[in-house]
């Protein structure tokens, strides 16, 4: 049974997705030059996941407003959401230019009340329960609308995440689609070294009654297909194998890029790499 989720588009254009993601990484890189810190590695890690949700999975109403909901549970990665919302015209260029300044309305974490932001996150481990509540509300109204959310692997360590994992499947939230940005890094290092018992991850979600699939989190088509081809009678978890800092070689798997902004020289090298990927 392919449940409530008709694919929005029946064809998925990989080349377009690749170009969008390259463009988003470049835009984030440019914004990094306005501030000393912006969690660039965290945004690059989930670029393909968030892009796929916004551009290929979320369905719109006839008037163009989104039917389905996107909630950034790993709030600190929201730069990728901001640049997508900018391209969609929901946030303005002026909004992003004033990022983190007294004149602006956007900060390091998504704030409820900002255009396109459905919930305030930034403290980890809140998003999955809120997404579960939203999914429940949509079910209650029989809308068929889907809630999409992205968690970080560090966030999955929070007890509250597991409380939501248990509840979402007990409540049969078949309209909840979550992804874990499984990049093996958190603030203090490599998760597989510091917390080996965190793995295997896929089995843990399955044991709680979720439909769970593992994919390469930088393969847009694989993400799209895993979600659209889900069986769909239970909440769905995409365990996405990712690389923190993906797209800029010196940032990949290097913990300082969790937070830091590149300096001038590092910026130029990153621009070269992103342009060469055209």
């Amino acid at each position: 049974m392919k449940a409530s989720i008709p694919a929005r588009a029946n064809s998925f254009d990989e080349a377009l997705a690749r170009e969008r993601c390259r463009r988003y990484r470049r835009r984030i890189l440019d914004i990094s030059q306005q501030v000393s810190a912006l969690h660039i590695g965290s945004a690059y890690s989930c670029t393909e996941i968030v892009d796929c949700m916004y551009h290929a999975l979320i369905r719109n109403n006839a008037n163009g407003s989104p039917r389905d909901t996107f909630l950034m549970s790993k709030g600190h990665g929201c730069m990728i959401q901001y640049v997508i919302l900018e391209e969609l015209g929901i946030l303005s260029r002026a909004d992003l230019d004033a990022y983190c300044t007294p004149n602006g309305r956007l900060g390091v974490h998504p704030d409820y009340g900002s255009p396109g932001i459905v919930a305030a996150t930034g403290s980890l481990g809140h998003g999955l329960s809120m997404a579960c509540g939203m999914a429940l509300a949509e079910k209650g109204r029989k809308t068929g609308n889907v809630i999409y959310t992205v968690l970080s692997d560090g966030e999955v360590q929070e007890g509250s995440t597991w409380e939501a994992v248990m509840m979402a499947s007990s409540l049969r939230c078949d309209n909840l689609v979550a992804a874990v940005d499984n990049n093996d890094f958190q603030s203090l290092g490599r998760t597989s070294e510091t917390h080996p018992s965190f793995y295997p991850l896929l089995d843990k979600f399955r044991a709680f009654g979720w439909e769970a699939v593992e994919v390469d989190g930088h393969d847009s088509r694989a993400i799209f297909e895993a979600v659209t081809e889900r069986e769909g009678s239970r909440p769905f978890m995409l365990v996405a194998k990712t690389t923190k800092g993906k797209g800029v070689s010196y940032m990949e798997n290097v913990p300082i890029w969790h937070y830091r902004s590149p300096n001038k020289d590092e910026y130029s090298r990153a621009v070269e790499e992103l342009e060469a990927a055209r």
Partner: protein
Amino acid sequence: MRNTFSEVLYQEASRNPDIYIVVADISPAGSMSKFSMQYPERFINVGVAEQSMIGICAGLALKGCRPFAYTIATFSLYRPFEMVRDDLCYQNLPVTVVGMGAGVIYSTLGGTHHTMEDIAIAGAIPNMQIVAPCDPAECTEATRWCAQQKNGPVYLRIGKAGEPDLTRGADPWVFGKLRYLRRGADVCILTYGVITKMAMALADRLAARGKSVSVVSVHTVKPLDCEGIIAALSGHRHVIVIEEHVPQGGLAPQTKQIAWDIHAECRLDTFTLQDHFIHNYGSHDDLLAAHGLSIAKIAQRIGLD
């Protein structure tokens, strides 16, 4: 301050094998790497799991160890609140909960990272003690005291990095006692924590206008030095409280209560964060100013300009 904290904790840990630090995927820089290299079995990173951080500290303390829990203030106090209350305070265990970057220091990170109510929240729990140093030197004293005290739980509210030295030449630091950073006869500014820097600058402004000004670090916010506050209220014509905390439950209302109880005759002005969430970004000073805490605004309100 956080580097000072880790250096002092490292020193204490080399003297006392019962000292542990339990962090939740956030660690102080500087000497903490020395700590974790030399005493890996006493440096525990629970991951992003603050409730477990507090529970593990409680367990360690129940077996006689002296643990410190450490992360960003919102996550060390708010997230695991009931573990702090039941496991630490109810059982009265000598655990130090370090709240790093309290107040609105995380000025671009938004409301989820602002710690505006921690004094009220920690202070409301029986047995909890609160220490909030104003500069690195005071942080040294406070950290050492936390490592050695046996009374019970402490909430140690510290800043982040780059705080200037404010206590050179001041009276010695004594737990539970007000500390005069400078002494004057007309105006007394009561304050604690990182915002003490603003209090010192205000004192300079007042002094330039011919006022003789005291600045007091109320580093021990609980138990509050009531005798000391009474002496300050009685010994100055004008008392000003400046704190980076919401108006309820902090130093400002407690000072007012004491002033009422003793029929104080001085003028009393209080300056705090506002009782609402602001959705502003910018520097730490920008955020404080958005809450009405700036030298200019305070000077205006007390009729200095």
